[in-house]
């Protein structure tokens, strides 16, 4: 217990130290950084737009002290105008650190300095992991490896201007799922089983969806409306499906196969058909919650733009079509993958387990 407490204290101190470091790291910034000392409200006007939305526009004078550059210690002031709703603009408050840009002799605010919050939250996650008896090492290794792979993926798509996006996504997906499985299950035949089920289910789901979608000529699916309207539209669309469904399918296939292995260990003479049937029964329970996970992620991701559409006098139908239909189509493809994983895993697992586990 004492040893645990000491480790915990050490981790806490490291987290606090690193967070503190980012609070004072403005010397590493090329752009001037200030700390806001005083904020005065200069002007306030309430307006109603053509859609009867009432919003208040506020102009504030922000006075701050430079934390870096050769003006360090001097004070500076600038005007900032924002709407109370703060969709794209920001209200500055005392104590905040703000990055500025110099245009001519005047300074204008560029961005809030957010790295301290970011590092603090990462630290909080690490600290909580150390508070509890989790097997942290495996988890950290798998996250680290996957982030490195993702970083490599990003670099290559940027260098090739997205031209090899889809094949590269497939390779990346194969790599990150292999890493995840190897770290969680180790180099066992169960990992191989789960891996092949994941690959087969995802491939079949994608193939089937491409077939069905092209049958209707992608009717009602605005692939061009993806985030930032990034090209190639279909490539981005399917790459996002692959990444988002992968974690869920891995989860599902591991659940089913490990339950079936347990079953075989307890009932040595269980038949292949019975195993297959139990696999389907176990999988049935998993489908609903897993689709839910992706549903809420899709909705949450688009919430800002959905409300922008709605508040601009668009009907709910048009809003959903323009903002959510793409995400919901991706969700449907993912859902098909989630469903197909159940029979695929049950089939592979029942075959392999009857042969391997004695």
């Amino acid at each position: 217990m004492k040893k645990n407490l000491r480790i915990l204290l050490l981790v806490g101190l490291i987290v606090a130290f690193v967070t503190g470091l980012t609070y004072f790291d403005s010397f590493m910034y090329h752009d001037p950084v200030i700390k806001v000392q005083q904020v005065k409200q200069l002007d306030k006007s309430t307006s109603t737009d053509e859609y009867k939305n009432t919003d208040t526009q506020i102009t504030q004078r922000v006075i701050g002290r430079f934390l870096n550059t050769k003006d360090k210690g001097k004070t500076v002031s600038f005007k900032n105008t924002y709407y109370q709703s703060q969709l794209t603009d920001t209200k500055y408050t005392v104590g905040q650190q703000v990055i500025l840009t110099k245009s001519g002799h005047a300074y204008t605010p560029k961005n809030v300095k957010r790295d301290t919050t970011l590092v603090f939250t990462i630290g909080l996650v690490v600290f909580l992991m150390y508070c509890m008896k989790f097997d942290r090492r495996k988890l950290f290794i798998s996250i680290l490896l996957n982030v490195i792979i993702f970083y490599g993926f990003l670099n290559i798509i940027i260098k090739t201007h997205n031209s090899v996006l889809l094949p590269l996504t497939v390779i990346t997906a194969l790599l990150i799922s292999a890493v995840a499985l190897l770290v969680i299950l180790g180099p066992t035949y169960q990992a191989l089983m789960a891996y092949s089920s994941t690959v087969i289910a995802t491939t079949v789901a994608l193939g089937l969806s491409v077939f069905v979608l092209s049958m209707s000529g992608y009717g009602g699916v605005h692939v061009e409306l993806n985030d930032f309207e990034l090209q190639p539209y279909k490539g981005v669309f399917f790459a996002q499906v692959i990444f988002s469904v992968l974690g869920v399918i891995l989860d599902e296939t591991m659940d089913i196969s490990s339950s079936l292995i347990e079953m075989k260990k307890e009932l040595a003479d269980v038949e292949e058909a019975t195993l297959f049937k139990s696999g389907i029964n176990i999988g049935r329970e998993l489908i609903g919650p897993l689709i839910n996970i992706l549903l809420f992620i899709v909705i949450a991701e688009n919430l800002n733009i959905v409300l922008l559409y709605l508040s601009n006098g668009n009907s709910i139908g048009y809003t959903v079509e323009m903002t959510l239909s793409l995400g919901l189509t991706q969700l449907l493809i993912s859902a098909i993958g989630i469903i197909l994983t159940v029979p695929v895993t049950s089939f592979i697992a029942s075959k392999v387990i009857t042969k391997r586990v004695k």
Partner: protein
Amino acid sequence: MLYLFLTFVVLLLMVTGTRGFTLLFGLGINIFSIIALLILIADGFNALITTCIISVVILVVAIYMNVDNPNTASTAFKTSLLIMVVILLITIPLEYWASAQGMAAENQDELEGFSLAAGISYPKLAISIIVINSLGVISETSVAITSGLNEIVDNKPTMTPSEIFDDGFSVGNKILNTQTNTLLFNFFASTFPLFFVIHSLGYKFTEVLNDKLVVAEILTTLICTIGVILTVPITSYLVYQKANKKIKKQTSE
């Protein structure tokens, strides 16, 4: 999209049989609740309060409709509610601190032609986004850990509290691993277009680190992970409490 939906329904009914209808019904209620949420917030209701109320509805549907064992369902529901409160308590100060709400320069094309004075509080909406994002993960995690633990406790009713916690962590370990994967891969899915755009805008490393959209995405993923981590001790505690009550009842009889 209609054909795709039909394919989904046919496959669902083929694999799950009659249970598929319950699943579809649950999904329908969830989508209906979400649309109600959107309309209410757009009409000017407080985004946070609306989100909390709708989230409770969604959790009831997600847990009670998917779990047959009432014992497991009630513990999982209690856990999810507690986690939701914790997530709110963590998110509110963090979002205030980071001011990572709304949209940014990268969204310029999407924003063209819109009135930006929408009257909706986007800082509050940023908190709602994280809460909604976590709903599916939290309900799944709490159900998985509760049912795993209940099974162990039912088979061995004489467990001590520290044994229950140990088992909670061994069940939780695997779930934490898989849920982190789900969250991480979804982070990959939603951010690779963002990173591509950021690169084409020529951002420096420090600019990426402070970028509103990047920080918002990372915060969402991290806070959901915190929710998953905290599910384990909270579930273990609730299961332990229930087992304790049972033992007390038996000894007094």
